Every structure is written in C-alpha cells, then in structure tokens.
C-alpha cells in the first residue's frame, strides 16, 4: 500500500516542478524532470525491475531503437542549412 502512494506523491511534486520551470523559464529543469517521472512510472507502476529478464530486454530494445531513429535521423537535418519557413503561404490549396 505504501509504495504506489509514495510514487504518486513524487509524481505530483515533479509535475509541480515542471510547471514552475515552464513559468519561470528554466528550460533545463523540465528536461530533467520528465525522464525522472518516466522512470518513476516504469519502476513503481509497471514494476519493470521485477519483470523477467526477457521482458526487461523487450522494454530496453524499444528505447534503443528510438535512439537510433532520433540520432541518425536528425543528423541529416542538423548537418545542413535549413531555410526559414515563409511567412506567407503561397499557392497552397
């Protein structure tokens, strides 16, 4: 009974931190709080640490593959000149 309630309180606190970070323009704090919240949900609600090794591998594989898409996929855009979007939308239906 104790653990899930603690987790919920922790998550609400982290949510408050995120909102404050946004209002006070402290961008890095939101970046920091979000992964912590995800880890709390994964550990305390989904009990990923108590799952069998196979199921943990399934979970981690998804994360690794997202990393491939995000890194190799955005490398192209980061490595070339990007033209700004026009203000007026010309000739589009």
């Amino acid at each position, binding site marked *: 009974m104790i653990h899930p309630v603690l987790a919920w309180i922790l998550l609400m606190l982290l949510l408050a931190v995120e909102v404050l970070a946004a209002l006070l323009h402290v961008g890095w704090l939101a970046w920091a709080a979000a992964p912590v919240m995800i880890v709390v949900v994964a550990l305390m609600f989904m009990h990923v640490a108590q799952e069998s090794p196979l199921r943990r591998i399934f979970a981690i*594989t998804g994360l690794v593959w997202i990393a491939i*898409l995000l890194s190799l996929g955005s490398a*192209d855009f980061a490595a070339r000149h990007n033209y700004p979007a026009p203000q007026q939308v010309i000739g589009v*239906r």
Partner: protein
Amino acid sequence: MSRTSTVEDLPPSYLNKENTLFSWLCSTDHKRIALLYFGSITAFFFLGSAGAALMRLNLISPAGALVSHEGYNRLFTLHGVVMVWFFLVPAVPVTLGNFILPLMLGARDLAFPRLNLLSWYLFITGGLITLWALFWGGLNTGWTFYTPLSTNYTNGHVVLAVVGIFISGFSSITTGVNFIVTIHRLRAPGLTWYRLPVFAWSLYATSVIYVLGTPVLAMTLILLAFERIFHVGVFDSRIGGDPLLFQHLFWFYSHPAVYIMILPGFGVVSEVITAFSRKALFGYKFVVWASMSIAVISFLVWGHHMFVAGQSIYSAIVFSLLSYLVAVPSAIKVFNWLGTLHKGHIQFEAPMLYALGFVGLFTIGGLTGLFIAALGTDVHLTQTYFIVAHFHYIMVGGMVSAFFAGLHYWWPKITGRMYSDAWGRVAAAIIFFGFNLTFFPQFVLGYYGMPRRYASYPPEYQVWNVLSSAGAVILAIGYLTPLFYLSYSLLRGTRATENPWEATGLEWKTSSPPQTENFRHIPTVVDGPYNYPPPHSPAAPRHG
C-alpha cells in the same frame, strides 16, 4: 525406406478434421491459417506479376507499345505496392513460418493462436482496401509515395491505398510478436537456443524487424494522409516543411523491410542445403549471429536510398559506410552455404535447385549493391535500371526462389503428397533461365543510363528492353508451371511418409500431414541441429 506410404485409409490430420467453411475461416490452428495465407499470397503474387507483365509488354517499343504514360505509372505503382506489402513482406513467414515454426519447435501451436487468425483478417482487410484503391483509378506515385507528388499533385486514391497498407502493417506486427514470444516460450524440452534450426533463428530476426520497423511506417502513413487531406504543410517545402522528412521516415521502415523479405529466405536455404547435402551447416553459429546482426544493422543504413535527394553530405557518408557494413554478414552466410556444400553428398532435387539458384542470384544482387552503396557511382546509377536489376536479383532471383525452395521442400509435410520432381526440376530451370534473361539486360540498361519508371525510352535502348521482355515471358511460364504439377499432386500425388527427404528437424518427426495437435507426445531434443552422419560413413547416402 520407401518414400510413399501404402496406407489405404486417409489418416486423421489437420486437413480433414472438420471441413466446413466456418471451420476453415475461424480456425485458430496455425496450419490452417498458413493455408489461408498461402491462398492469399498466391493471388497477390499473380496480380503483381500481371502488372509487371503489362509493363514489360509496354517496354517492347521505345514509344511504349501498350499503355499511356499515366497508365504505365499506375502499373508500376500497382506492381510495387502489391509485391512489396502484400507478397514479399508477408510471404515466407506467414505461410511456411506459420506452418512449420511450431512443428520445428516441438510446440502444438503458436503462443497466441487467436492473434494469428486476427493477423490474417487484418492482412485480407488491408489488402482488399488497397486493391480497391489500385483498381478504382489507381495511383501514379510509385510504391514509395514520395511527397509532394503524393500529397499535393497526384489525382490517385492515395489515402485509400495507405489505409489498406496501414491495416496490413498491424498484421505484420502481430505476426512478429507471436513468433518472437513463441520461440522464447514454447520450445520443446532440450531444444536450447543453439540447437534451433536456422529457419527458426531467421524468423526471429525477421520478427524483430516486423515489431520495431512497422510502427514507424504506420506513423509515416498517418502523416502522409494528414498532409494529403488537410495540406497542413509538414512535408511541403512551400510552407517550410521538408519532403526529406517523409523520405527519412519512410525509409527507416522500408529499408529494414527488404531484410524482412530476405531473412526468411536465408533460413529456408540453410534448411534445404543441409538436407540435400546431407551435411551439417558449416559455421552454424556464424550463420545465426550473421542473421541477428543483419536485423540490427539493417536499421542503420536507410539513408542510402536518399543519396541524391538532398540530404547532408556528412549524413550520406555515414550511411554509405554503414551500408558496406551490412553486406558483411550476408557474405558470411554465402560462404557458409558453400562450405556446407563442399564434400557433401549433394542431391539435385527441385528444392535444392531452387536453393542453389538462390545462392548464385542473391550473390550477384548483393555484389551489385556495393556499387550503389558508394556515393560516387550511385550518382550515376541511382534511379536507373541498375537499381531495378539489383533489387530484383535479390527479391526475385533470391527471395522468390527461396520461397519455391521451401514450398517444394515442405510440400510433402503440408499436404501429405509428393509432387513430380521431374517437373519441379524443369520449372526450376525455366525460372532460372527466364529470370536471368529478364534482369541481366537491365544491369546493362542502367549502366547505359536508362531511367526507371519511364514508359518510353530512346531507341538505342530497345535491344536490351526486348531481351528483358522476352525473358519475362519465359519467367512467367516458369512461375505458372508449379501451379499445374503441384495442383496435380494434391489429386494424384503419391502419399508422403513422415520424412521423405530423411532430413533432420522436429517437423519431420510427425505425420505428413500432421494431426491438429502436431505431435502425439512432445519430443525431447538431445542432439544439435543438422546431425547428419558424416559424409563417408555407411549410413550416409539416402535411397532414391
């Protein structure tokens, strides 16, 4: 040991257990679902081939002999969409995989049989919707749906077509989940990972790509439809979007998809070559880990489809290097097959002819991939017939040959009948000859600069085009021939025994065809895979 059974009465099996339409359409038996898929896949194969036949007929004349330019565009789109998503991506896993994998593992069914049936219904639903789009006017975008043609300029039924493909994608994902979980959880006692036949390993590798790649295609198609319907701008450069974003998303799935298509073929060829050389697979662990590493590395190379599309040159260099890396495990497998053949007791039955054809044709296709993985030569060769020939050598010369190899190898197990091997060899020879006549001239055409997806061409290319079209006629005859002798075998073929090829593997330790529950008693495995007796021992040669 005679190959045919003298039993007069029809033994009970999954085929005759119950024969109502309902029992077939609502069966959760993996063997019956495999046959449902066989019928569907065959129909799609002939439909896609018809598209190709019309294309090749059109290309006999430089001005286009048969159809208008718009009509030609719709034909190559139909050919590509049907062949990629409704034939090659499912082919071996959903037919041979569904049927043989549980038998090979010593299991009574897959882990999630009802999910398996749902898989088939998703496939059929998606297929029918896409067929509706293709025939109700068609599409001229090519199977690659590049923006902005597909989002802004084409008149075809893009949204309808991608809805069908989207739905069939879920069929892939559910099949992949089913196979991976089955291989982990339902192996027979004693069947450790390194005792698994390579076909099982290759289905595992294929399923990894099904599960991790297809969802990205799903999102890509959603964004494509969103853009097409609402013109919001995400792929439209006039508004600040980037057509290359579509290409990155599309190829992130579609490059691994080509490995979905070929990996099961690798598995089939490993089974057939070992059985018909009566020799253990040379370098089993190398073959296993080559398959798994192909599944991983395949996700790192997609940018090689976009070398001239406008992506960053630094990105292109990285993708080129990684594309060379992915060739290595495939080459390792080819050497291992050759090592298996070496000093084996080789039998040239039809499955072996198809498998040997695979090794040669896949190698040519793979080697030509090296030219186009290099940035400099790709600038000349991209979007020409060189590319078309490259992937057809792998997909048709390779994968379709492997599919036929597996079909002929496991036909006795699936149907309980033997087919005429003489006709099988004839068909294999016609296919091999027809295939090379069709596609080798296309390498030449590409080298000389003829672009792909063109309905007409300058007259100096005509000779090669006519050769290619002539080859297509022969190839068509070759592909039609098995329809006859295989159908004939269902009616009049001699009954098959449990193990007509005297091959290793648990699937050969039950009746042909198997009973619904696969095995009377689940076997316990004590040996490794491919434990054929050594080549020059008295027990080695197979009778017949």
